């Protein structure tokens, strides 16, 4: 299966492709060639590995969550600790990979889109480390909501470009980043933050994120006699999930992607792209997305900024249709409850994105036995979410 897709046109079954203005076709081909060339070059692979190890702090730990396990009374719960990655989430793995590639391609400038600012911070970080200029496109609404991350990017030397088009959120920031790239593709590298966008982005980002799953496989084998019964990851664009799932696709392991149900998938306020969306094209790729009957893309909602995206990576669309991965949706409330549970029992404050995966995993773990093991991708830490959490929990704690 791992060999089957994407095909030469960047297709995962029906999904993927390159739905971009003509101007970008050449840069995408150039990128694809450079990527293939780099991934064949042991020197590049070694450099990537070295940066991941010596700079980002990989491998991240695999933690047996003994207290949660005890509390749930079902399957043994393991956590893959991407929260311990430099800058606090899996996002950096991909940013490092793409930045090294940009450098190799001789591009001195990177551009990136960001919603909550996590990918923006990761991009600004690698730009600083590798001596690249960095422009981060960010919706004006998001800039207001994520003051701290905006400041962090600036401190790292990046320029944050406010985007007022549309609703001034992630989708619009992405549109604007693409527009800027169209105009400046000759010397700019567009560093996309998830397994979305036109081919070869979904493949490239997956390959830079699979280190999560690959490491976990080795670590899990050292801890348990067999593979995990189930693996959980939250799904926004889908990069942490595919990074975790990919190395297990051909194994006898149940894989569960967890979307944001916001205020409920039966309301209009959610971001459950697979559970409630339909096929369409967004940001250069054919996939599932949230749209109205006229094919206008609609604004999603989730308490978690990183899941608040109307599309999803095309590989997930494929894995959904082919039923290799099960996708579930978890509400704001359920996520926050699980966040609190993990915090109180394990002393780990996860990102609200991550808490969606936790919620589904905890629900299911109860009904499994102590012979079962589950692995959750702890995609990031909750430090960035403190303002939101304070709003929500202030009275309770």
């Amino acid at each position, binding site marked *: 299966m791992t060999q089957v897709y994407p095909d030469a046109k960047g297709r995962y079954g029906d999904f993927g492709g390159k*739905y971009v*203005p*003509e101007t970008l076709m050449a*840069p995408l081909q150039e990128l694809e060639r450079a990527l293939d060339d780099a991934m064949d070059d042991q020197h590049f692979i070694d450099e990537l590995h070295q940066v991941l190890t010596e700079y980002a702090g990989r491998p991240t730990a695999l933690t047996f969550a003994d207290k949660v396990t005890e509390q749930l009374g079902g399957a043994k719960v393991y956590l893959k600790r991407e929260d311990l990655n430099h800058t606090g989430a899996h996002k950096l793995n991909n940013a490092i990979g793409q930045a090294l590639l940009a450098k190799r391609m001789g591009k001195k400038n990177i551009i990136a889109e960001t919603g909550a600012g996590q990918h923006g911070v990761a991009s600004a970080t690698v730009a600083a480390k590798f001596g690249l200029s960095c422009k981060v496109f960010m919706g004006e609404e998001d800039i207001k909501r994520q003051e701290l991350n905006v400041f962090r990017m600036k401190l790292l030397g990046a320029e944050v470009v406010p985007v007022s088009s*549309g609703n001034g959120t992630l989708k*619009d920031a992405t549109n604007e980043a693409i*527009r800027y790239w169209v105009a400046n593709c000759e010397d700019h590298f567009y560093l996309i933050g998830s397994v979305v966008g036109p081919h070869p982005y979904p493949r490239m980002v997956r390959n830079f994120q699979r280190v999560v799953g690959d490491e976990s496989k080795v670590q899990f084998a050292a801890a348990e006699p067999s593979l995990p019964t189930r693996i959980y990851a939250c799904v926004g664009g889908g990069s942490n999930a595919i990074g975790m799932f990919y190395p297990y696709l051909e194994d006898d392991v149940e894989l569960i992607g967890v979307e944001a149900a916001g205020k409920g998938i039966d309301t209009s306020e959610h971001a459950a792209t697979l559970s409630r969306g339909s096929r*369409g094209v967004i940001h250069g790729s054919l996939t599932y997305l949230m749209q109205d*009957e006229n094919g*206008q893309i609609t604004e999603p909602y989730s308490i978690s900024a990183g899941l608040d995206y109307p599309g999803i990576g095309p590989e997930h669309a494929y894995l959904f249709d082919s039923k290799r991965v099960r996708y579930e949706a978890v509400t704001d409330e359920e996520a926050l409850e699980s966040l609190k549970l993990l915090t109180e029992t394990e002393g780990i404050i996860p990102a609200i994105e991550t808490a969606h995966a936790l919620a589904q995993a905890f629900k299911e773990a109860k009904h499994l036995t102590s012979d079962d093991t589950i692995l959750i991708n702890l995609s990031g830490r909750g430090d960035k979410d403190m303002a939101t959490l304070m709003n929500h929990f202030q009275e309770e704690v």
Partner: protein
Amino acid sequence: MLTQTSFQGKLTKTQNLFIPFLVAGDPTPDITVQLAQKLQTAGADVLELGVPYSDPIADGPTIQRAAKRALESGMSLTKAIELVPKLRENGVDIPIVIFTYYNPVLQLGHDYFFELLEKNGVEGVLIPDLPYEESSEVRELALNYDIEYISFVAPTSEARIQQIAEQARGFLYCVSTLGVTGERHEIAPEVLYFIDKVKAYSQAPVAVGFGISTNEHVRLIQQHADGVIIGSKIIRLIEEELDSLLTAEAREQALERFYVQVSDLVK
């Protein structure tokens, strides 16, 4: 050496083409019809009728604003296509090309989309985010329905210029500069060189778009290409008259001023 007649034979000219762009429903469907009449009177050879879209990645701020106004007036792909018979009723008989992003097309379904186009007498279609490699099914359907599927070439197209140009139908949309739609100050010499290169391969008339905003641009481009596509500049002219256009008593005069400005632009 352009011999091909196209747009169901309706486009007989193959030089000095003037192809203006309107967003259907900007600011209202009725006004779009009136603006189209003026453009035809001012010498338009083909009308590019844009469908407003929530996520127009190939468009700059001017056309984004127009799309926003049009969406607020309730426009959609279906309604834009159904505006064509209205245009005909009002005397607009030049070929009409629907400009739409791919996602709304996908939601209608390819077949239904072309049926709609045919039923409403649309002569061409142009999808900015459906590049050559992704468009074979749509191009084939277009051929079957005898509707021109307009292709793009860009300065970065390089090796692909020939492939695309040789299969061009209707006209070949030559993106004059990198970037999204919008007005530009200067036309760089490389642009003219690029146009010449495209012309050498193209069977269809080569029309140049993106950034044409003055009469000087038009004259210069017409010396090298077969036509000009003018989008953002036209939208800007509409924006200047927006309040008047939306006021019943002032509209006639605003349309007249629009007509004069457009005529000056392409004179």
